[in-house]
């Protein structure tokens, strides 16, 4: 993640349990991307935040995490998303981030089947693409990440049972703590 520069961010302060970042993806099109950390529950002394990431559509005024913009700058975009993690922990050092892909749930598979062009029958070949991308970036930078963060993963069959992250495993959710 250190060999590709990130895009510059515009941030909002935390408001109503949400921290938002915005940047412009400058690939084949200029797309506004949105990152949102949302407090989803208190867990003991910590707050669990969901990491959301998607595209902003200026025509509709809506944000979607279901689009694949294929803008030709995926590494830079993911580096930019990851660059918000230390910013999050700078203001929320004791809290925890959970990451799931928007294409990992059953509803996503059903939506995909409706317009399937890959001939999927028993399972959706597009399922879990996003979390696989997150895992790829985690594992590519694993040695550096574990110096600063404690990372856990969980499996589809038991999504709220997190185990220490081991590269190569087929996790569908990732949990991140900052080391003190």
């Amino acid at each position, binding site marked *: 993640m*250190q060999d590709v520069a990130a895009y510059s961010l515009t941030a909002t302060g935390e408001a109503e349990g949400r921290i938002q970042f915005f940047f412009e993806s400058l690939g084949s099109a200029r797309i506004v991307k949105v990152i949102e950390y949302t407090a989803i529950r208190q867990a003991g002394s910590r707050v669990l935040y969901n990491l959301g990431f998607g595209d902003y559509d200026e025509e509709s005024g809506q944000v979607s995490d279901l689009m694949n913009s294929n803008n030709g700058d995926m590494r830079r975009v993911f580096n930019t998303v990851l660059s918000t993690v230390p910013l999050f922990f700078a203001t929320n050092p004791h809290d925890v981030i959970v990451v799931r892909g928007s294409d990992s749930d059953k509803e996503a598979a059903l939506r995909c089947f409706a317009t399937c062009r890959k001939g999927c029958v028993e399972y959706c070949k597009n399922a879990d693409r996003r979390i696989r991308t997150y895992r790829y970036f985690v594992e590519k930078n694993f040695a550096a990440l574990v110096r600063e963060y404690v990372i856990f993963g969980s499996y589809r069959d038991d999504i709220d049972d997190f185990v220490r992250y081991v590269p190569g495993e087929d996790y569908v959710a990732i949990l991140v703590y900052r080391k003190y």
Partner: protein
Amino acid sequence: MNTKKTKLSVRETLPMSEATRQRLAAVAEKLKGQELFPEKVAQARQAFQNLVLPL
């Protein structure tokens, strides 16, 4: 023994043009405080409602 520690940070950030700055400021002003991923957040709340944090 000294070991070299690599700080996990993005080495470089691309500068933002004035047009981009204005565009993002307008979007941020419009969306600030709104829940942008309500479905995903609802799913996360449900999926992790019984989560016992490992640390």
